[in-house]
């Protein structure tokens, strides 16, 4: 069978040359030489019909196999050379990635708002609604209905802002009147919190502001006990402030009985642990239920209240309350 080249040797030779092609140009030359139109292999395959019948099958099969192997090698080498070229081009396209990237400046919600939203979300998760009431409020809702009678020192001009022209109209001193409004709106069960702005006639200094923020909570249902109050306030404070010990000690508020002060354990920078008072709470006084027409024999409930400013100040270690109300961007932008 002279005249027919050794196809496998031819393929080996071609693959060796292709693999060593240094660039795309050399690779093209190899392609033309081994599988181009004039290449011996191409010509051989074109002449298969002229071969003796007993050789046609073998030559056709081997010839096509050699061609496929060569083309595969060409593709592989082509891919490799292209990747190399792209890599080289990219390497040359240098950039100082430490230069600032495109800026998308983020502003900040006020730290009081941030705490308020967290508080709302915790209670929303427990099934509480978020209630609301006016800041310009009646003395009845702010005091009388909450068991603070006329003549109480808190109702004096030295403690409370009064509104001109109104009959005992004032700027609410607590969010507690929202309790009254909520209960007047409908029968139990009631599960609400009421965040809001409140006012007391304190001169401005590092720890006092005539305007500040509170959150009130109220739950009224059948079978609510002091144990539920403890459970609720403990769960809430631990969600908000982390896994701290929560302590209740007896206290006095006109509209709850029993009443408690709620503290959390807090470790300061020097490593001293102390109790930090964060909230007041208690079982709703039967007089308050009577004032809104709830039957105190059927319904029991608890209420709690705490200052958002105080929690924000504790959390962010803000030592001067005035910073909260000055609109100083050097302060506000720290909370983005």
């Amino acid at each position: 069978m002279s005249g027919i080249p050794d196809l496998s040797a031819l393929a080996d030779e071609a693959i060796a040359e292709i693999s060593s092609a240094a660039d795309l140009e050399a690779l093209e030359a190899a392609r033309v030489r081994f599988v181009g139109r004039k290449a011996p292999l191409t010509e051989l395959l074109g002449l298969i019909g002229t071969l003796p019948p007993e050789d046609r099958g073998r030559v056709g099969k081997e010839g096509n196999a050699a061609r496929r192997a060569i083309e595969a090698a060409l593709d592989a080498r082509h891919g490799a050379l292209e990747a190399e070229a792209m890599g080289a081009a990219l390497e040359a396209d240098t950039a100082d990635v430490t230069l600032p990237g495109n800026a998308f400046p983020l502003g900040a919600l006020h730290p009081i708002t941030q705490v308020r939203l967290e508080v709302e979300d915790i209670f929303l998760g427990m099934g509480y609604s978020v209630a609301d009431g006016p800041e310009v409020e009646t003395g009845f809702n702010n005091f009388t209905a909450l068991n603070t009678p006329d003549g109480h020192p808190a109702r004096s001009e030295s403690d409370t802002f009064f509104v001109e022209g109104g009959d005992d109209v004032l700027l609410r001193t607590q969010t507690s009147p929202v309790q009254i409004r909520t209960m007047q709106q409908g029968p139990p069960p009631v599960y609400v919190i009421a965040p809001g702005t409140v006012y007391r006639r304190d001169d401005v200094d590092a720890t006092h502001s005539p305007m500040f923020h509170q959150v009130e909570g109220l739950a009224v249902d059948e079978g609510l006990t002091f144990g539920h109050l403890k459970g609720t306030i403990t769960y809430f404070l631990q969600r908000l402030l982390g896994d701290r010990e929560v302590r209740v000690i007896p206290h006095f508020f006109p509209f709850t009985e029993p009443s408690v002060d709620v503290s959390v354990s807090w470790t300061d920078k020097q490593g001293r642990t102390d109790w930090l008072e964060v909230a007041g709470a208690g079982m709703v006084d039967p007089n308050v239920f009577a004032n809104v027409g709830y039957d105190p024999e059927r319904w029991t409930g608890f209420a709690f209240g705490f200052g958002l400013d105080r929690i924000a100040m504790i959390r962010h270690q803000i030592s001067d309350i005035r910073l909260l109300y000055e609109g100083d961007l050097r302060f506000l932008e720290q909370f983005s």
Partner: protein
Amino acid sequence: MKLPLEWLREHVATDLDDSALAERLTATGTAVERTIERGIPATGANREAFRIGKVLSAEQHPDADRLRVLSVDTGDDAPRQIVCGAPNVAAGQTVAVALPGAVMPGGQKLGKAKLRGVESLGMVLSASELEMAEESDGILVLSDDLAAGTPVLDVLPPPGTILELELTPNRGDCQGIYGIAREVHAITGAPLHALDTALPPEDGAGEVGDYVSLRVEAPDLCPRYMACVLLDVRVGPSPEWMVRRLEAAGMRSINNVVDITNYVMLLTAQPLHAFDLDRLAGPGIVVRRALDGETITTLDGQDRTLSADHLVIADTEKPAVIAGIFGAEFAEVSGGTTRVLLEAATFDGPSIIRTSLGLGLRTESSARFEKGQPTDLPPVAMAIACRLMHELAGASLVPGALDEHAVADRPAPITLRHARVATILGADIAAGEAAGILERLGCTVQPGDDAHVVTVPWWRTADLQREIDLIEEVGRVHGLDRIPAVLPRLEAHAALTPEQQVVRRLSRYAADQGLSEAITYRFVPEHDAGRLGLPADDERRKVVRITNALSDEMAVMRRSLVPGLLRAVERNQAHQRRDGGIFEVGRTYVPSNDGLADEPEEITALLFGAPGARGWRQSPADVDVWAATGLAIALAGAVGVEAQAIAGLRQPWMHPVRQARITAGGIVVGVAGEVHPAVLRDFGVRGPVAALTLMVRELVKVRPSDPRRYTDLISVPVSTRDLAMLIPDTVTAAHVLDVAREAGGDLVRGAEVFDHYAGDQVPDGRVSLAIRLTIAEPGRTLTDDEIDGVTQRAVAALGDQVGAELRS
């Protein structure tokens, strides 16, 4: 209130040490604010380091006028050199000396010192350094009987621990040390010693009516008035033990008679008053309302003018005491007093509060009367005081007492249902335990299977009147900390209201655009309205006005958030902040006819300078009207409201023509524009400042409630056509878009401005504007004719209605 534990322990024999007692008091509601340790800390080392010394000599310090160099025998082999600055030091005195190594009451350790070059091997002590008194004039000079070297701790035992208590307003009974002793008995079970209320011998001549008369003209303000007369009183200093107890409780010694009244008040919570009987006109006591304009010169030497609101204790001519609060000079006990009228009375609490606030006078006495004292208390305090007068001032008590009081009804017993205790507290407290607690509190308990019948002692009738009051007592003494904490099971039915959702989204979006949220005072100066240029008859000049504002800067409730934020910008610019964005979400206050207010919420944002990232390839532009309208429309969009900026608004506080109404769904939802330069000037702010306000209620009103419907503009081709035109400069872009949309019909899916130019190559009075129409119909491919028809109609309408000349 200051509670010297040494005094307390005389009345209640508790085994608890000081800190355990403090803890138990706090846990049961008598909050211990502070524990004060007084005197020399009693340690073994301090027994050695604090010694009695004899001053052998006192020489002038060579280099300091005020210092003396002492030689002091402190019981060692040789005298010790000590430098002392006290003015009263002298040779021959017996003094208390702290040697190097002594641990002082404050905890610091004394070392050797050199004072102006002279070595000092110790310190001569004053009473204040030993924390036995609040202040002192010099060193403590002790009895010469004491031998040099004697441990000071043996001579001056430390006065001990003082607890500073924060009492709750319902516990008037705890304003005396004996009241706390009762409380300690209740919370610890420690034995309580009964107060000795035996009178001294009534050895004064005659009977009380022979000496003085009493008329109570205002029984409504004075439920009980009691007076005794004491003769042969010797006014002088009080014994040391009494002085030390008064000082420990925070009062100063005056003389034995005054000290007795204070001492008994500290013990029983019943204020007493001692008069010099011989200075009272009549002599007679009249308890009456003051006459309008009547004056009194109080003990502090001040003349005070009274009115008919004030209750006075007068003689037959003039006021001698502002009842329960402060006495007059003329009737006070002094060195020459020999006959004393002693008063123990109770007054109406609210009246005491009003008078005390009105006159700006709050005293130890008025603080106790504010809570309203029980009418059973005066005889107790009177007996103890009379006995002390006898023992310490040699007084003879005249038999009998003047005593006017209405017969008070004893409150009815209270039924305490066992089941109710569990219902409120959520803990099973045995009926027997509850009864025990109430009995220790002084109640009489008639036990029952379902309920106890409880009679409250006279000292608690003010705050224990209902079943719930008893439940609180049972709970707090049992221990609220012992009640198990559980979470209620409730059916979740909570969601934020649309207003709440809108406010949250607006704030979050504004912050995400780089603005920071401020909270400014909601009370503002009234002149803000003028500074905003609001006309005299502008509706927004109606404000909620505060009658007792802290200052003119906080006089009225705001009608707009703009002034507060302008002040914030001013403060920021004052510390060289050139650019920024600030916003606030909050209420404004519109007076309503019922005397209250409508309180609509708004978001206001101010942008000043050229806010935004400034860097190596970013350079933000100065803000202008479009910064404001753009942000306003984006904010509205963030809450699902498609808004537009419309020209023609005339807000006085904004640039007259660079301002826009923000409208949506056919109503105005806000305003946006540049702040008027004159307004900026009046607020001290540098421009440019762009501002916007969106009203929350209006946004909620036009906010679509249905979910958006999908429009198929995906499976069909969407065509765009650009139209460039010259239009008169009086025509607004919004109008051009409206006309094009209207003329094009339903096939126009969108119309927007993509270029705007005025200047060279554009004739005067004209503007070059380019708009792009997006044309498609869901579910159907439009023909070229249909698309061309849309543009032709738009072009024709623009020509006719706005005088546009199309450029191509």
